[in-house]
């Protein structure tokens, strides 16, 4: 109370001091973090029960359902490995629990490249490169990509080698890693290096839900589903770009051994702590620069981190019963308000509502997309975005959610033009996949496939899985550009343009902007 009286006094003395006081109070009461957006391992800060972080479109909100967390000695936040990293290094609260290129570049500038994020193991294009040279980290600095080395041929969960249905040839190796005598495909380690974006470590109750479409057999292929090594039960295989880890615990263990270069495996207690933390964390855009408060009373129930924390998981939302991102038509035809600031806000919200309808109802021909056209729906099929992005509240696929939308396979993957006048060189590796002649070919790409990342096929060994990538959640997009598994869309506009080209949708400019506005508030 005394503080309030003191503040009133300051208002009488100076309007500037008064305004600063109000802003400070707002930040304190709303848990808004404007400074120290970057979490370094071992910071020892407290992660509040609710906190917001600024991004170009507004603010990303994080709900921690168990309340405030002291992060000191917490294995998600501590540098428990040998390279100084923690889980939080690549799962930054301000970046939607993922990692944006803007943050990566800022970190390079702030630390001169000394931040553990840039560790040689996978923060460089290849470990043999000179660490002080930014070019050695170009895929991380330009596209936010972490190197993922995967052994070839793959092994199943029992550790037995899988006989692949195809051979891999390195056609192009701009990083030098896939032809390196140690790290290359034919090298000592027998690894394929692919480069992928970190995925958000939030809303994982949805991502790992076993309440829809989970059985011993993968619904899209009939193959065996992965199982939880603790329970023996099948899992939904919707985690990571290639679903190679079945559970949050195995993922944490694998990430600690790989990305953190930990010397001995995480203890059961550490695994429990990490998993519990990940399952209690919910994130979504909370405030929009143009649309205002996304969590206000009576607003759409599909928006905001609090609604994420209370939503139902394992629900198919591609229907008018559940909806994927429920808007309840609350932002359709809003009442006109003459005040300019409200008029802009109303116009933006109506645009978001239209963008939702473009996402949900605007039909186009989905063609030649493996694991969607190939699962009994026909090729082509006249459907909408919501067909593939059908999971209630996240926009992922509901289960076993890998498909090839063309983000890594040619001819649709982003490739710079090749000509005598082009100066931009390809950044990504290129592999030639040759499928066995004694088996049916890939139904859309045949027996010779060129890809920047074979995706799920590096785990399953199946020709049909080449370039198939698990669909990501849509939450916090504003906080974590660039997009797609290989960071090939720098902005939401580029993301929308990719689909427009890929499926010849022919969106109008208005539809594109509406869709972008809609995606920006998720």
């Amino acid at each position: 109370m005394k503080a309030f009286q003191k503040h009133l006094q300051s208002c009488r003395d100076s309007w500037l001091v008064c305004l600063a006081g109000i802003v400070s109070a707002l930040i304190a009461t709303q848990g808004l973090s404007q400074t120290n957006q970057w979490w370094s391992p071992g910071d020892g800060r407290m992660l509040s029960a609710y906190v917001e972080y600024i991004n170009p479109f507004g603010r990303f909100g994080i709900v921690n359902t168990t309340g405030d967390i002291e992060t000191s000695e917490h294995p998600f936040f501590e540098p428990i490995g040998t390279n100084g990293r923690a889980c939080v290094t690549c799962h930054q609260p301000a970046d939607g629990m993922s990692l944006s290129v803007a943050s990566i570049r800022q970190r390079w500038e702030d630390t001169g490249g000394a931040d553990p994020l840039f560790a040689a193991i996978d923060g460089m294009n290849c470990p043999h490169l000179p660490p002080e040279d930014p070019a050695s980290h170009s895929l991380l600095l330009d596209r936010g990509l972490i190197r993922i080395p995967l052994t070839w041929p793959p092994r199943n969960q029992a550790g037995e080698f899988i006989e692949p249905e195809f051979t891999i040839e390195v056609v192009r190796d701009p990083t030098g890693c896939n032809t390196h005598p140690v790290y290359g495909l034919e090298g000592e380690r027998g690894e394929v290096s692919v480069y992928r974006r970190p995925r958000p470590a939030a809303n994982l109750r949805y991502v790992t839900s076993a309440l829809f479409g989970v059985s011993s057999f993968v619904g899209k292929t009939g193959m065996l589903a992965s199982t939880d090594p603790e329970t023996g039960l099948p899992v939904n295989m919707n985690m990571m770009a290639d679903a190679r880890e079945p559970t949050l615990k195995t993922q944490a263990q694998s990430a600690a051994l790989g990305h953190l270069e930990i010397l001995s495996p995480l203890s059961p207690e550490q695994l429990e702590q990490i998993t519990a933390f990940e399952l209690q964390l919910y994130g979504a855009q909370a405030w929009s620069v143009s649309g205002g408060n996304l969590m206000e009373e009576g607003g759409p129930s599909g928006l905001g981190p609090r609604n994420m924390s209370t939503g139902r998981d394992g629900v198919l939302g591609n229907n008018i019963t559940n909806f994927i991102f429920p808007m309840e038509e609350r932002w359709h035809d809003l009442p006109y308000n003459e005040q300019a600031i409200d008029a802009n806000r109303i116009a933006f919200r109506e645009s978001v509502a239209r963008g939702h309808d473009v996402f949900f109802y605007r039909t186009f021909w989905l063609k030649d997309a493996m694991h969607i056209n190939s699962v009994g729906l026909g090729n082509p099929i006249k459907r909408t975005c919501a067909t593939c992005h059908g999971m209630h509240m996240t926009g992922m696929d509901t289960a076993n959610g890998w498909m090839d939308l063309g983000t890594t396979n040619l001819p649709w993957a982003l490739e710079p033009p090749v000509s005598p006048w082009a100066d931009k060189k390809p950044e990504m590796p290129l592999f030639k996949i040759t499928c066995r002649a004694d088996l049916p070919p890939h139904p859309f790409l045949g027996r010779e496939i060129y890809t920047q990342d074979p995706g799920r096929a590096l785990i399953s060994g199946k020709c049909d899985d080449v370039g198939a990538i698990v669909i990501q959640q849509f939450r916090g997009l504003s906080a974590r550009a660039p997009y797609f598994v290989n960071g090939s869309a720098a902005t939401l506009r580029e993301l929308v343009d990719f689909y427009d080209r890929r499926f010849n949708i022919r969106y109008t400019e208005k539809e594109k902007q509406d869709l972008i506005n809609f995606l920006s508030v998720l």
Partner: protein
Amino acid sequence: MESLKNFVKTLFLFGAGLLCSLIHAQEGQRIQFVACPIVRDTSTVPCWLTRYGDALYYMGIQSDVSADFQPPLQGHQVLVEGIVGSEMICGGVVLEEIKITTMPELDGSCNTMLPAEDRYVIDVYPRPPGPSSGRLAFQVNIDPPVLEPSMDEKTFTLYFDFDKGVTFRQPRDLTAIMSYAEQISATRVEIQAYYARHQLSNGQTLDENPAVAIRRANQLDELLNGAGLKADFTLNWSTTPYTGGGFEDWRGRRAEVTVFP
């Protein structure tokens, strides 16, 4: 003499062409052929057609994964078996009791997409082209049949696409086998796999690769074992093709899994 030869040759080619153009199956006739699938847009859901001889046939409409008719893949030919009906839908003669399977090899010429026309209307469609009403189009097919309490041996028949092993079509059957095996505490499983010969209406025969029977048997063995069915497995596969002589030849693309207590 040369001109006479040319005349005879021309006459022969003309006759052959005429014969082809006159392939016109009668109502009630069972036909089987390989052709390109054609998709026609409508104001609602697309319909699927195919041309054989001088006739355009209607195969079905786009729906969802619960439908009996699951549309083919453009970029491939489709093997069609059905009985010529009397009804016309979407500009095509309806094929009753239709069974289709996509041919595995790619055929880039199979890419015909026809625009919507006002005269072709699909006004009964269990699933719209966008979001559903909250359920699958064909509820009756959602759940596997409830298993009768039994301790008897039981045979499950699984049908496959042409030259294909296990795909998205099999998980429901595999799950049913697993459930029954658990119910009777199965000790023995016999797998008998086949490959098919299709007697086409143009007189040709179309055989699956004999090796696919082995692949089907081995895959079923691996999958059931891998899913935890602990029993003694016996694998058999046919070395001669199954054929119905043009009548339901698709039944040859199958495997039988018999579960014993």
